[in-house]
């Protein structure tokens, strides 16, 4: 093994990292928003809304992401929508991971004490305010850890976007591997890189989890 060949290409890894980081950040935000909306749909009082939301979760969790991304990447230009790989990838990731996030959040919402919600209703808070200010923060305390592993998976899934020509970490690594002809070293280095990345993300989530649960002494 000889890792010295990679050193000249560290700049390319950095470029790839920036793309991976921005796709990840945007998709985490997007999938969180979709997840919250779908999760509230899944616990709705109206059966039609509930069925729709649960159908969404079931559909996107049972189809491989690579198939979904090809569907959008090749399908959208057919109907006259021309967007680049970055936008398509971010959109597809948000939609797909939104389903996983929704499932985790739904479990958290179902755990919220109904007495708290009734109290909020009696206090005359609007429906939206109850969702945003009461239910979501309480549900997040429970859901954040599983949500964290969903997001860590999202970061790992961004590697699949290299198949639709996005030059993120994996896409750039492919170029480096064929340039240096040291595929083992390049991909091994890349795997370590992803491990460090997801480890840092898990530390961040732990900090946030502790912040959200700071009033819950003894519950830890």
């Amino acid at each position, binding site marked *: 093994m000889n890792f010295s060949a990679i050193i000249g290409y560290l700049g390319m890894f950095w470029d790839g990292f920036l793309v991976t980081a921005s796709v990840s950040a945007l998709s985490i935000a997007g999938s969180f928003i979709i997840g919250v909306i779908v999760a509230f749909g899944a616990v709705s009082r109206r059966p039609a809304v509930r069925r729709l939301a649960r159908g969404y979760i079931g559909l996107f969790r049972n*189809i491989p992401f*690579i198939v979904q991304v*090809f*569907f959008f990447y090749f399908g959208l230009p*057919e109907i006259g929508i021309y967007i680049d790989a970055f936008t398509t990838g971010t959109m597809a990731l948000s939609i797909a991971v939104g389903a996983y996030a929704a499932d985790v959040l739904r479990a958290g919402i179902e755990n919220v004490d109904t007495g708290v919600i009734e109290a909020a209703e009696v206090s005359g808070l609007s429906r939206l305010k109850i969702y945003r200010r009461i239910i979501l923060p309480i549900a997040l305390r429970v859901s954040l850890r599983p949500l964290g592993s969903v997001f860590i998976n999202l970061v790992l899934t961004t590697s699949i976007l290299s198949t639709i020509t996005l030059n993120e970490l*994996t896409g750039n690594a492919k170029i480096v591997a064929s340039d240096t002809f040291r*595929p083992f070293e390049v991909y*091994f280095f890349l795997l370590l890189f992803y491990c460090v990345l997801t480890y840092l993300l898990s530390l961040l989530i732990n900090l946030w989890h502790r912040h959200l649960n700071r009033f819950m002494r003894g519950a830890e």
Partner: protein
Amino acid sequence: MRNQGFNWHDPILWAQGLGVSVGVFAASMILGSLIGIFIALCRVYKVPVVAPLLLVISEFLKNSPVLVQLFLVFFGVPVLLQVNITPAEAAIFTLTGNTAAFIAVIAISAMDALDRGQLEAARSFGHSERSILRKIIAPQALVVAMPALIGLAVNQLQVTSLISAIGVIDLTKVGQILNQRTWQPFIVWAIIGVTYFVLSRVLAMAGGRIENRLRRHMDWAGL
């Protein structure tokens, strides 16, 4: 361009792709389970050197993208070791390792969930360690682990779609081939997507059945 429409070859291609996907899935699940259980036992019995080493490897596998693992095995290993590896071998090898890492976690937590008193009782009745494992731990741990195993199986089925990236002609690769020839992405990817969806549902339902059946033996009928 001629030959753009769908023809009677395409269902055959689809069936072949389906066979390859299911085959790789089944092979990696079976081999992965065996290795995963071995890892779990090494860790439960705290085998020196082997146990911590396996822990490091399985953490590494769980925290990195499967696509890159496939690239490492298919493109990297042949250059490093000067050997030839076919795409299918690389796919089964990688997915087996990946499955094993997850199976090990599930197996360990399932064994942890069992009542310690039972083990002590069995030991004091003179059961050998092997018979305890086979007759007392395994059947109960399997019931506890079933929901997690079903989730893992559904997930691993979808992970098999990544092997198309190293050139295995699986269901996803068949989709790419048909997509490039017919240029009908909505029809092609919808069919491929539905196929995976139905497979996942069937897998989940079959798993649920097995779980119910195993559970029936757990309920004590009473005196």
